[in-house]
């Protein structure tokens, strides 16, 4: 947590021109290591509802891992290979678990009013993650190259076209949907999730709802 340069030498002036130093100092102020990886939590973190967030992350990890294997062998692999079909199944059920736990996490945070005390942005990022995840899943369903994908594409195009975005987001274009699904959208979801976690760790978990004010020590 140094406020001076890490190298030997004369101390720089209080308002250092070093961007590196200023960045390090900002990180030290906002998210010191013992807040990023605390080994203690307030005593009231004592409900299984608190677990839904980390379980959602775990499901996302399995979605990505199984997705990487599927991407490596190409979009046709899982139709022709039993191992491929297994990894597709892993991907399919991980996605189901991801949404199940994410929504349970949303319910929990809603009933805890988790946005209080400066945490509104954390909640909002959470909703954005929900929306982007739905979009990611949607492009995944469109990338299946089976009957389901055909029918979803033919129907969804009407909604996209009615909203004017069908020009930029052509659900009938497998190449576009696949590229969005395996690269651009997962990068987006990952960045948002990291941001969400950093915001939670920066502020800590919210206190219980207390109309009388104050917290029992």
């Amino acid at each position: 947590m140094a406020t001076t340069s890490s190298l030997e030498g004369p101390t720089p002036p209080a308002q250092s021109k070093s961007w590196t130093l200023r960045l390090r100092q900002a990180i030290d102020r906002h998210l010191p290591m013992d807040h990023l990886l605390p080994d203690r939590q307030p005593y009231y973190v004592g409900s299984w509802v608190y677990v839904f967030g980390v379980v959602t992350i775990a499901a996302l990890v399995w979605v990505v891992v199984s997705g990487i294997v599927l991407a490596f062998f190409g979009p046709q692999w899982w139709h022709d290979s039993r191992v491929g079909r297994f990894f597709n199944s892993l991907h399919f059920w991980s996605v189901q678990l991801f949404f199940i736990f994410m929504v349970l996490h949303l319910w929990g945070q809603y009933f805890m009013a988790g946005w209080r005390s400066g945490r509104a942005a954390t909640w909002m990022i959470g909703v954005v993650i929900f929306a982007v995840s739905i979009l990611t899943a949607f492009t995944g369903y469109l990338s299946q190259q089976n009957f389901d994908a055909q029918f979803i594409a033919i129907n969804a195009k009407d909604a996209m076209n009615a909203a004017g975005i069908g020009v930029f987001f052509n659900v009938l274009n497998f190449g576009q949907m696949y590229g969005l699904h395996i690269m651009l959208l997962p990068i987006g979801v990952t960045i948002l999730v990291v941001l969400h976690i950093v915001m939670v760790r920066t502020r800590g978990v919210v206190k219980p709802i207390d109309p009388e004010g104050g917290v029992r020590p």
Partner: protein
Amino acid sequence: MDTPTTYFHWGFILISVSNLLVIGGMVVLFAIALVAPFPHPKGADDGDNK
């Protein structure tokens, strides 16, 4: 699992057994999470945050 599933029709609601199990299961899971006892840390408390 490739055989067609049954659908429940209640008023304007039409839902497959599978989807109903997922949603119903979520509600049950949430309820369990609310009431199930959560393991408390063993060992001495670390004391109050100063």
